[in-house]
């Protein structure tokens, strides 16, 4: 059976060789880089803003139990109901029960990666509840039966023609290559669903402890309709999304937009505080919040990587990652792609099966520099590699590095080994040797010098 590593190797080998798709992704990100730089430059000091954003998350994450309790008390006093889920299965069960209790015939959803993490749509469909994604990108991906390609830009890998064909096939609409027309097709289709849906499911970008509100950021207005129109609103959020005060949003909301999407602010930033109160006209009758652990407390217990709970899921690390740009989002096989995905997936799904993602990095550090909340991403990849050595014995690596170390501990042997390598390179290059043979498949080595540096240095001293 294929394991996650061999699937990754196969997929990434295919996608990284697809020059056209690679170029398409680069072009798609071109506008983002330009706008991000413009809006970052509007900050008096972007680095200080990163410090402030990081501190806002740090102070909540490092005091998580207390801040969560404060949030929950306030949220429930606003009329909402909190449900705790230890893992994905518990979260699915809670949500399925709530949907069943609501006698729902139709469910509408806005974009929420945490629902992807717990595979909620599958569970809803298997239980007989139809569910429709209302975010344009997610709607397209749902029609395609495909996971999001990028956790902020779910269908960034698709050309307009592909979307037009998809709509023609599923919605019977006329072909068009106008983005505005494509958007209007989806909007028209979705509008009636908001009205008929009994349950609206959303995520949460931030849980604001001092006001008991949840903050949702979006560009299309679909999340507001999803939360406000149906009788029952269910929000799903990881426990790490909590922040201390509403003031923290003054730095986190603009940074989320600028770092992740190259916008000064996202179009709609809404705070939701409980269900419809007596005498109010709008809003859901019930407002449920499912708070998910799913290995987050395990990350919390790891002082080295605790800062990965700072993540606001902006996607900046994906956008700058040369690995993501070359292999694309689907090759990862994870809910969260890119550097943050490679860091946290081993925690979420097990280091044994997912440590290869930490290996698939040149450790260039572009992600760490881009992260608005200063997660030490690329060094966490190194730590995952170190931790993996303990849980996944790799005999080849042990022997290779053991031998290498034996040689470098002995300068005379190192010198001799180098000499033998150089003298026999003409032969070695034709052999299917590990590493050397792999290198030579796509790259040359420089002309092999007759003398090493140490030999040349010694000679120059003897002249």
């Amino acid at each position: 059976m294929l394991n996650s590593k061999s699937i990754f190797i196969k997929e990434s080998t295919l996608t990284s060789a697809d020059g056209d798709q690679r170029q398409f992704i680069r072009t798609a990100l071109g506008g983002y880089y330009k706008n991000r730089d413009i809006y970052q430059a509007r900050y008096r000091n972007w680095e200080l803003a990163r410090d402030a954003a990081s501190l806002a998350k740090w102070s909540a994450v490092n005091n998580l139990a207390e801040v969560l309790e404060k949030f929950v008390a306030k949220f429930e006093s606003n009329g909402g109901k909190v449900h705790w889920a230890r893992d994905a299965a518990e979260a699915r069960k809670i949500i399925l029960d709530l949907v069943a209790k609501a006698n729902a015939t139709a469910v509408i959803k806005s974009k929420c990666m945490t629902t992807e993490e717990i595979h909620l749509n599958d569970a809803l469909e298997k239980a007989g509840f139809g569910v429709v994604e209302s975010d344009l990108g997610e709607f397209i991906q749902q029609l395609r039966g495909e996971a999001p390609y990028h956790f902020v830009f779910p269908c960034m890998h698709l050309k307009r023609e592909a979307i037009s064909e998809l709509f023609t096939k599923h919605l019977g609409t006329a072909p068009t290559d106008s983005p505005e027309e494509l958007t209007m097709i989806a909007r028209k289709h979705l509008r009636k669903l908001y009205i008929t849906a009994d349950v609206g499911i959303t995520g949460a970008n931030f849980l604001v402890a001092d006001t008991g509100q949840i903050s949702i950021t979006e560009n299309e207005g679909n999340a507001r309709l999803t939360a406000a129109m149906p009788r029952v609103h269910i929000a799903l959020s990881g426990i790490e999304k909590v922040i201390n005060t509403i003031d923290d949003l003054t730095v986190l909301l603009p940074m989320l937009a600028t770092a992740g999407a190259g916008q000064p602010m996202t179009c709609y930033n809404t705070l939701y505080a409980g269900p419809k109160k007596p005498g109010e006209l709008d809003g859901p009758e019930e407002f449920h919040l499912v708070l998910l652990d799913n290995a987050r407390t395990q990350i919390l217990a790891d002082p080295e990587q605790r800062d990965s709970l700072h993540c606001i899921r902006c996607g900046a690390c994906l956008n700058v990652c040369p690995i993501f740009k070359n292999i694309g989002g689907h090759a990862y096989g994870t809910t969260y792609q890119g550097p943050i995905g490679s860091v946290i997936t081993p925690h979420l799904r097990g280091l044994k099966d997912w440590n290869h993602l930490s290996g698939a990095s040149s450790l260039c550090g572009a992600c760490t520099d881009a992260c608005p909340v200063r997660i030490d991403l690329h060094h966490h990849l190194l730590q995952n590699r170190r931790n993996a050595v303990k849980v996944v014995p790799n005999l080849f690596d042990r022997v290779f590095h053991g031998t290498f170390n034996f040689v470098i501990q002995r300068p005379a042997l190192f010198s001799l080994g180098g000499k033998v390598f150089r003298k026999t390179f003409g032969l070695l290059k034709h052999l299917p040797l590990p590493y050397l043979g792999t290198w030579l498949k796509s790259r040359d080595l420089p002309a092999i010098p007759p003398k090493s540096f140490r030999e040349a240095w010694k000679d120059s001293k003897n002249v």
Partner: protein
Amino acid sequence: MRVSLFIPCFIDQLTPQVGLATAKVLKKLGQEVEFNSSQTCCGQPSYNSGQWEIAKEGAIRSLEVFKDAEVVVGPSGSCVAMMKKFYPELLHGTKYEAEAKRLSQRTFEFSDFIVSQLKITDVGATLHKKVTYHDGCHALRELRLKEEPRKLLRAVKGLELIETEEAESCCGFGGLFAVKFPMISTAMVEVKAGALARTGADYIVSSDPSCLLQIGGWLSREGKVIRPLHIAELLAMGIDHA
């Protein structure tokens, strides 16, 4: 100053001219240059492979090799980052921690040493060539060296420096990553070296010979005319031409 050369293992065996050029430039700048031939490898390949216990032995060995050095200068941002930044972390909490910090403070990347320690930007070189620069990731993001090599290049008479938007993007080397994930690594160098080749420069210059191994290896395989060149080699060449 008495400068102890730190010549990474693959420079020693594959590109010795980089080490010789490093010595030549430092001597030209009035430094007393020494080379302790008991040095071998800093241990970074094992460190990056997660084999930290094995890497520690390499690190401890380097502490011994360089314990009497006044300053240690290496022509590789990556290997210098290993000694300067990662040794203290790797040996944190061991009896070697203090010595690792002492070595860290005395170790410098070649261009950093000339610009920030010797306070020299014009080494007295002349070279009528066009070059473009590749920032090695370790030099740029671990050691935070961006302007140091550029100051040296801008001071070379006759030299034209062509900057590109891809200067800071990774070449895809990443040590053993290059051979553990060869397709991804090759895709990365195609993007990187392809963009730099289109500048029409004569040389792709970098302070990191490991990146140049990757970039040069791809350029050679693809038959591109632009050549990789270490900044020490460029300066040494320019000193000869002056």
